[in-house]
């Protein structure tokens, strides 16, 4: 029989453990499953979007152990044992200051790139609390937006920088 006729290549599922937004998960998955699929389909965390699927647009940006990553380029086995933060994990009782900045400055339109943008800025400000405009551009260079022309996104980032500089809030970074 033609191998194609046998259907999808049978791959054994394995058990993986990971912490997602502070919650421990154990999941059976094919090791090469994209983390974006795992998040969206298994955990119903649909805030992480997939737009290109090849790591170019950043819509699937997440934090793995606090570091920025593309969920579409990460496989289940690579996430095993790690701590993952998605957009849904930012909000505690109130909105994260990055979320508030986007809300007030109009850093979004259709909103599809927004979770990824916010996560990417989260990673940037964690490493560089007072980034220059160039640093912000560099920090968001992996995230595409088709609606805003980036004006509102830049204004949102500048607002976060101002607020961190003024020390008006606990940074939480």
């Amino acid at each position, binding site marked *: 029989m033609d191998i194609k006729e046998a259907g999808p290549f049978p791959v054994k599922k394995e058990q993986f453990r990971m912490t997602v937004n502070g919650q421990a998960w154990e999941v059976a998955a094919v090791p090469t499953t994209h983390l974006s699929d795992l998040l969206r389909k298994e955990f119903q965390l649909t805030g992480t979007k997939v737009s290109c699927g090849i790591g170019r647009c950043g819509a699937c940006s997440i934090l793995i152990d606090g570091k920025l990553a593309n969920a579409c380029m990460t496989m289940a086995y690579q996430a095993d044992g790690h701590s993952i933060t998605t957009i849904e994990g930012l909000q505690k009782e109130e909105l994260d200051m990055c979320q508030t900045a986007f809300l007030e400055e*109009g850093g979004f339109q259709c909103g599809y790139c927004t979770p990824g943008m916010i996560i990417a800025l989260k990673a940037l400000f964690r490493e560089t609390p007072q980034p220059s405009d160039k640093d912000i551009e560099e920090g968001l260079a992996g995230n595409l937006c088709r609606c805003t022309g980036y004006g509102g996104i830049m204004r949102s980032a500048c607002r976060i920088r101002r607020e961190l500089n003024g020390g008006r809030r606990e940074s939480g970074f």
Partner: protein
Amino acid sequence: MIINKPSRVRPDGRGKVTGELKYMTDLSFPGMLYGKVLRSAYPHAEIVSVCTIKAEKMEGVQAVVTHKDVPGLNRFGIVIPDQPVLCEDRVRYVGDAIAAVAAETEEIAEAALELIQVEYKELEVMDSPEKALRPNAQRLHEDGNILHRAFFSNGDVEEGFQASDTVFEETYELPRQMHTYMETEGGVAVPEDDGGFTMYAGTQHGYKDRFQLARIFDIPEEKIRIVSSPMGGSFGGKDELNIQPYAALLALKSGRPVKIHQTRKESVRSGIKRHPMKITIKTGADHSGNLLAHDVKIVADTGAYATLGPAVLDFSVEHAAGPYRIPNIRTEGISVFTNNGVAGEFRGFGGNQITFALETHLDRLSGMLGIDPLELRRKNIRKPHDLGPLEHRIAPTDGAAQVLNAISKSPILKKTSRNCGYLQRGTGAAITMHGGGLGFGRMDAAGGRLSLSSEGKITASFGFEECGQGILAAIEQIVMEELGCAAEDISIVIGDTAKVPKSGSSTASRGTSMVWHAIQRLKKPFLAQLKKRAAEWSGCSAENLIPGAAGLRDKNTKALVVTYKELAEKGPLAEETAFDFPTTPDPVVGGHFLYSFGAAAVEVEVDLLTGDVKLIDCEHAIAAGPVVSPQGYRGQIEGGAAMALGYTLMEEAKMTDGRYAAENLDHYLIPGIKDVPDMKLIAIEDLMKGDVYGPRGVGEIGTIAITPAIVKAVHDAVGCWINKLPISREELLEAIDRKGLKQWT
């Protein structure tokens, strides 16, 4: 931006920044299957046979459909239904669908597609309008290879040319641009007990989808419910049907919900694009710069099927002289079927192509005449009460002169520092005029409803969709301003045919405008009903009550008399309206009535070593009536500009032999944050005295003038004229070399 209005947080903002908002492609239903569509392997071929037996037998596959499973009309198309839902015997582009599969997982569905055997007989690929127009060319459709011709003429161009001192002719080439909405097409079809279904999928006109799907399924429209909002961007690209028929066919056949969410690659292959056009312009002027004759020929590559191709061409023809009055004009357009994808509706709608050609042409002509380019425009600009571009009556407007004057004062155009070694800077400006609504002779009905919900919310219902443009914010703002209630008193319902009245499409810069018109019609009778009920409830006279935050208030003391919630306890209350988008009284098909105006001034930097062009600075002047929602207005103009920047400098969905050269965002590049500078915006809000048409939409106006402004600025920097977009670095470098600008080499 100078707008005397505070910015408000958008009603859909919280869900978007938290990731909690569910787009149609985020939905899941119990027992849901995943669907995949088999697209053609060839851009042009006969289908000899299709065999689905192996796919059907595959474990996990629940349904396979081909054209035999289409109960009604196996065609779609908003105006002309010429595109097969599932092809019977012939494919005309690489996105043509042949079969679709629903399976327990996406992986199984994808594997099952591989098992469908299609035997093709390849046909010659018509990969350009020139080829498709050859006398012996194979016919792509029964009526031949011409989708549409459009023509306009006034005066006598030959006489005009004879009277001209300078006559200049050039041909301009425009690329195929991809919408590149971040959310690719997708959604879920859920079968319902009555034999119908609910389609959860983004579109720009839910009721039109319902009409088209009813025709395909041969069932009454009422059996189909369309939930079409929110969407992760559309820009015209989801106006036509995309995955809806396949998800619904599979759902009805399997009896289970079916989700299809196209990958980017599938989206590139099947989705519509902006029309590539070749535009030849010949313009004559006298020595003092009066334009005397304008002869324009437009050839559009419309691809394999019609969708809104005819209307796009009509729009280009209409805007061929833009905001200028030229006594002798002749414009001829032809839209040609090819095997190059499908071109259709895209933000700007034919205006982008023609305006690039027109404005660049005028810049070049001004150089020959030795007249300042903005002065040349000023000499020929339309006056407030002039007829429209098709010699038809339009709503009087001074927008053209307003944006031209405003942009003439831009500090960008006064910049003098130009030269920094191998980086050369230049500046340029351009203006545009853009019709709103669908135009005369096209079905362009609008409407809306105000009601009091049982929870005491003033509910505004419209058949519009939130694509990202901010229609929810516009509705909230207009209802607040016109009724006098608070944002907390309002609930908004859109994008669900089970709940909303017909409002027409969320296209053509018409949404905000139509909401304003609807509320103008609704507010008086709705408030009268509220007041009557409040008067009965409170014993106050209706004249002494005015609507305010939380309820009706005493006109003088502003004290709360009765809350909306209390009024709602007395039962439902609603007002509905239906009307048409205002049109010209003159029967000119496609002619618009309400126009908006835009201008852009830009500074660019050209790298003489790499040919790279970078936008350094940018200012817009927009005249589109009062600003409804400041954040939304600004976002539309800035976002539109970025999209135009991509169109000018980097984007082309190139096709070779009928196949896309770039399949994803690694090769099809759109602007990133480093490509777009901070932009300034002048919003000119005043309308002509007595204008009763309120705010015009700004969804498209920001996408148009930027392109010719950049091209002018490149010329200013390096002295090379561009007549083909996107600006090719290689061609620009060659031109720079020919000019001998690299003096150090």
